[in-house]
């Protein structure tokens, strides 16, 4: 419903428990970096856009609503707890 606004947050894996950080980094490494966004499962679905501040050349990984789960769950929780509202990301 509110697709033209976004929540944004940052997560530093160095501040996470080592095991959680390792799983998260492995999962993040395997994301479709730079690939075009897939088709959403339905209108008004959430979409997650990830980037790595220390690896800007990787581009952006776009995930559909149900894909930010499992080992990536800490990202969703971080967003929920610390997210700041802003306009949706403009394509670069």
């Amino acid at each position, binding site marked *: 419903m509110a697709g033209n606004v976004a929540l944004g947050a940052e997560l530093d894996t160095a501040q996470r428990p080592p095991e959680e950080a390792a799983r998260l980094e492995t999962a993040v490494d395997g994301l479709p970096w730079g690939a075009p966004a897939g088709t959403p499962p339905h*209108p008004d679905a959430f979409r997650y856009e990830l980037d790595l501040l220390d690896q800007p050349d990787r581009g952006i990984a776009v995930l559909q609503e149900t894909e930010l789960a499992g080992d990536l769950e800490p990202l969703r929780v971080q967003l929920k707890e610390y997210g700041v509202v802003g*306009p*949706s990301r403009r394509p670069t």
Partner: protein
Amino acid sequence: MHEPMRCILPASLLDKLARSDDEAVRAAALDALALDTRFRIARAESASRTGGRTAAPVTFARIGGEAHRTIYDKKNSTTQSFGTVVRAEGQPAVQDVAVDEAYDGLGNTYDYYWKIFGRDSIDGQGRPLHGCVHFGRDYPNAFWDGHAMFFGDGDGQFLTRTTAGIDVIGHELTHGVTQYEANLVYSGQSGALNESISDVFGIQVKMMALGQTSESSDWLIGADIVGPQLAPALRSMKDPGHANPHDDQPADMDGYVPEGDVHTNSGIPNRAFYLVASKLGGNAWDAAGPIWYAALRDNRLNSTATFQEFARLTVANAQQLYGHQSGQVDAVSAAWDTVKVPL
């Protein structure tokens, strides 16, 4: 061994039997004829109504005019099964405000489409409407998944109780209408049109429910569901880009965002509709709504339509409905010119 014969009696034979000297035969034939006539009338009535472009052929009659709603409680689950039935069609209000708001909102949406267009539910053939409340935990969204509506309770900051927005319910169910009509692809300009059409008819559902005209409406989408971080609304059809401090919608093609989110660029056709409705005055469904509806149902509207293609169809359908030299056609042409979509 004889097999029993199974026959369907034609009306002509029933007619003959109705004139029989045998009273029992006469009575049975007359009963059968009465029932047969009801079915034939209902089937003819149904055949005269058109369902959506992608709806299945009508196989049995249904006289429209009444929604068939069922509300389910998801109990904070995020699966897309329906959940526990908590209110069915015709049942009284319950203690759960989200349930009752969903029930009423589905009814408001049904009523709008039936009263203005004679459309019997989102598929035009009486499809039951399913609403699933308490989806997820503090889930700040509502959506139509192709089968049912799902409502989150909101997180209190981003969005609040999503069933509180009549326009939101109209918006989401209109995704279903679009699914059965042009089935606009949900990306690029066709996706922005898909979103805009949901806002166009969502705001009209709210206007009708609240007795608002084009002049008295605030033309805000989501004003009743936003939390403090997005107040006063999600989007403004009258003034795209100014609904809240983070609103990035463009008001015309000068601000069009290539590969932008479908909720961003929808501001352009949204504003076009607002301009038409406000120029013509009165109820938005007096002329602007029918023009947009006719364009949505026009077989020339492809699933990958651009803003220009849709704009041209609104003009063509305005001409068809009101005449080539009409004020309605002038209003539509001027609106698209204002938002800089070339015809």
